[in-house]
């Protein structure tokens, strides 16, 4: 106690409000614009459609509100079977992806196995093409007219559950490996050293350190695998056969029978497992305390024959399979008549059905729009979000990551319900590339947002304050402090949105019109029309565009992150 001091130790009961800092009008306008434009965008192009789909699911055939549609859907004899099918398929896919993903991530991150880069490249392949390309490749190999089926005479029954599980696993595996590898990368070698000094065997160290540290990554990977596969439309349409899942069912209801309200109900049903998975992951994330410490020393990869040989068989086997499937698609695109006349030709690339190459150009335009709009909006959002109070910032953060929990198919359906209306302003957007671009952007909003958040954390706050004190305004602060640091992130987000927009199918399948279609849909249509080799050729074109984009990104990143050279 400071005796004799006139100051009490309890704060006065009423604290006068802090006088707000003096902010120049320009800064204020900029800040408000960059906060509200992305938020209004989220409201109009994400929350509103989503609210509408919920509302429509309650509009009964007689026009009243009620549970009629739900009762109708649940009383459709086959629907429970379809729900069960979806859960079984996604559950199996998730299990395979997490187990195999962990093995491969471990192989890549913790061993010194040779040619690991081959596996890394192989894992990139499924990300370059629409998901249904895996199914296409599987059919070229194991289908009724598959190379292997023909060569061996086996009837592999690839259409159905197993075909779906395999093609979806190939599609989701790269994402699982990336997430798990990131969680393995965080571990601190000193933890392992300490355990070793205490006498722990390699197996004990694996069980007591590696697994607990990777737990959260495994859970995240499971979440991602589950959500992307339960809603995937492309593979289900191509290789699902008679195995009906929710994704194909919703499409049949809406496009086949024009039953929008029933479609809305199935959309809501699709939302339930994803939101549950989303919730479980969030709860786990809050409890998660990473074992990683600041300045963690990475664990050095080592060699251990008994561990590396089985891991290697899994890893190289998977890589071989991934490469073989995509290579088959590329090969098939040059073949005269699969699998009977295997002489090479370019005829498959002379595509005239389904609008020819038109949809590819539409895809390019859509993807560029989605990337440009998305990058700008996300940048504005993260820049302004930093100035919000903690509560508000948290609310914005949550809103920005909710889209990851909404399946593309549901979002697409919600867009149809919201924007396929006569007259009015929303109706004007329908049938434009802009609407498809917006749909793609909000579909991948969360991933882009999280990347931006990571990027903005690297912006030195004190340098911004220095600029302010020196007399710089907000724009100068953005130009000289924020942009130089954020440029690589902006490039990465731009190309991420571009590449995803090039290949996504599930959201846009509802938004195409007879006059406006995109590349991924063309592949599906060509295949369904029986032009499998032309579908392959079209996929190859999409992969080429995405590969070029990937190359451009690498070059741009190398340019923008190059350190300035000092003059001698």
């Amino acid at each position: 106690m400071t005796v004799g001091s006139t100051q009490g130790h309890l704060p006065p009961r009423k604290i006068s409000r802090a006088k707000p800092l003096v902010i120049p009008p320009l800064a204020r306008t900029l800040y408000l614009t960059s906060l509200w434009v992305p938020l209004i965008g989220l409201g109009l192009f994400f929350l509103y459609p989503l609210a509408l789909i919920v509302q429509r699911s309650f509009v009964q055939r007689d026009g009243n509100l009620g549970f009629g549609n739900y009762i109708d859907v649940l009383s459709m004899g086959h629907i429970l079977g379809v729900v069960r099918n979806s859960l079984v398929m996604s559950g199996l896919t998730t299990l395979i992806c997490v187990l195999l993903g962990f093995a491969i991530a471990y192989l890549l991150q913790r061993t010194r196995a040779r040619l690991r880069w081959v596996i890394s490249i192989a894992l990139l392949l499924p990300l370059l093409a629409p998901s249904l390309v895996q199914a296409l490749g599987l059919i070229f190999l194991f289908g009724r007219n598959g190379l292997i089926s023909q060569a061996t005479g086996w009837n592999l029954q690839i259409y159905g559950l197993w075909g779906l599980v395999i093609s979806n696993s190939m599609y989701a595996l790269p994402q699982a490996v990336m997430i798990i590898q990131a969680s393995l990368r965080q571990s601190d070698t000193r933890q392992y050293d300490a355990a070793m000094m205490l006498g722990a065997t390699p197996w004990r160290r694996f069980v007591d350190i590696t697994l607990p540290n990777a737990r959260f990554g495994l859970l995240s990977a499971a979440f991602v695998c589950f959500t992307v596969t339960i809603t995937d439309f492309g593979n289900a349409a191509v290789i699902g056969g008679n195995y009906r899942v929710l994704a194909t069912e919703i499409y049949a209801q809406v496009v086949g029978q024009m039953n929008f309200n029933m479609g809305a109900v199935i959309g809501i049903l699709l939302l339930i497992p994803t939101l549950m998975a989303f919730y479980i992951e969030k709860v786990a994330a809050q409890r998660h305390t990473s074992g990683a410490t600041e300045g963690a020393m990475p664990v050095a990869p080592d060699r251990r024959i008994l561990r590396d040989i089985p891991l290697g068989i899994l890893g190289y086997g998977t890589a071989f399979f991934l490469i073989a499937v995509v290579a088959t698609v590329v090969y098939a695109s040059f073949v005269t008549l699969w699998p009977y006349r295997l002489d090479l030709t370019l005829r498959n690339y002379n595509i005239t059905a389904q609008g020819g190459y038109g949809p590819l150009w539409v895809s390019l335009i859509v993807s560029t729009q989605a990337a440009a709009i998305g990058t700008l909006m996300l940048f504005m959002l993260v820049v302004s979000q930093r100035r919000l109070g903690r509560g508000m910032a948290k609310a914005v953060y949550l809103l920005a990551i909710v889209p990851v929990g909404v399946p593309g198919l549901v979002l697409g359906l919600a867009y149809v319900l919201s924007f396929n209306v006569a007259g009015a302003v929303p109706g004007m957007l329908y049938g434009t590339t802009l609407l498809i671009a917006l749909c793609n952007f909000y579909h991948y909003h969360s991933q882009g947002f999280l990347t931006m958040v990571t990027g903005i954390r690297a912006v030195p706050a004190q340098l911004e304050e220095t600029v302010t004190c020196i007399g710089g305004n907000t724009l100068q602060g953005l130009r000289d402090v924020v942009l130089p640091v954020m440029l690589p992130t902006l490039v990465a987000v731009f190309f991420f949105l571009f590449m995803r927009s090039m290949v996504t199918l599930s959201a846009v399948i509802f938004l195409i019109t007879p006059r406006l279609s995109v590349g991924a849909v063309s592949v599906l249509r060509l295949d369904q029309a029986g032009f499998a080799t032309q579908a392959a050729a079209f996929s190859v074109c999409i992969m080429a565009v995405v590969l070029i984009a990937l190359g451009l990104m690498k070059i741009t990143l190398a340019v923008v992150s190059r350190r300035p050279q000092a003059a001698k």
Partner: protein
Amino acid sequence: MQLKIRNLEKYYGQFQALSDVNLDVGDEEFVCLLGPSGCGKTTLLRIIAGLEPYNAGTLELAGKDLSSVGAQNRGFGIVFQSYSLFQHMTAAENIGYGLRIRKIPPAERTAKVQKLMELVHLQSFSQRYPYQLSGGQQQRVAIARALAVEPALLLLDEPLSALDARVRNDLRLEIRDVQRRLRIPTIMVTHDQEEALIMADKIVCMNAGKIEQIGTPKEIYSRPRTRFVADFVGISNFLTPQLAQSVLPELGSQAPDAQHLLALRPEDISVSISDDAQARITQASFLGNVTRLTVDLGETTLLAESHHSQALQTGDRVAISVAADAGVWVQA
């Protein structure tokens, strides 16, 4: 030109970060805000800079109220611990940044940057990028950048804490030298008492959001007013009046009241070997120029210092004595 702070209050929610802060900074004065982490010294600096809102009180610069002037228009210079340089600009471009913003013509800018580079001894490094400079050099650039705009007030937020001891020592003297030459009133935040004693004209010693004492380094060290100041700046032994009475009767009798403590610096206590004495050395730490001794007096223990080469060892019986004017009575 004078900064005048009156009755400043700052809350974070219910937590009071600053209470009733009153401070004047005169022309050409170098003021150090000294205190442990969390005492509110950085908050105070940020409020002065205009980077942090406050709840009550007034800030004036040369008679002009600052509450309606944004950080951007205060014309202050600021330097942070983390260097905070533009990584994509050369040293010269960093220093010239404020001039560029003020649209100073290039020729004039170059001349001024040149002069500043000489001032901070970086002439030959002007075309280097921050990552090609050492920590000390980077901080020199940051200081020159803050000085380039001829600030009305220079604010330094622990500018030396990230540097190693040698560089820190050099820069202390250099900053002080530059400040004297340019005659810029300066406020520096530090938790390092040695730094404050070496550099400051005036030390503001802070604890738990309050100013404990303001004074010259000499006053703060030799006439601390509170136990906190006596303890934070240098080392002190504290004796209650009763204890002082019984251990050092000649000093103990001067106690102003029962609430004060006698603060006694270790160097004010002389120790000599005396085999029939009660006191005993329980610990002797060799510190190079001095040996620090813990002396057990039975009722209490005291820290003392010995400059003699006489070999005092743990276990030795010793007698202690203090000068008649040693020690200060401080608020407990």
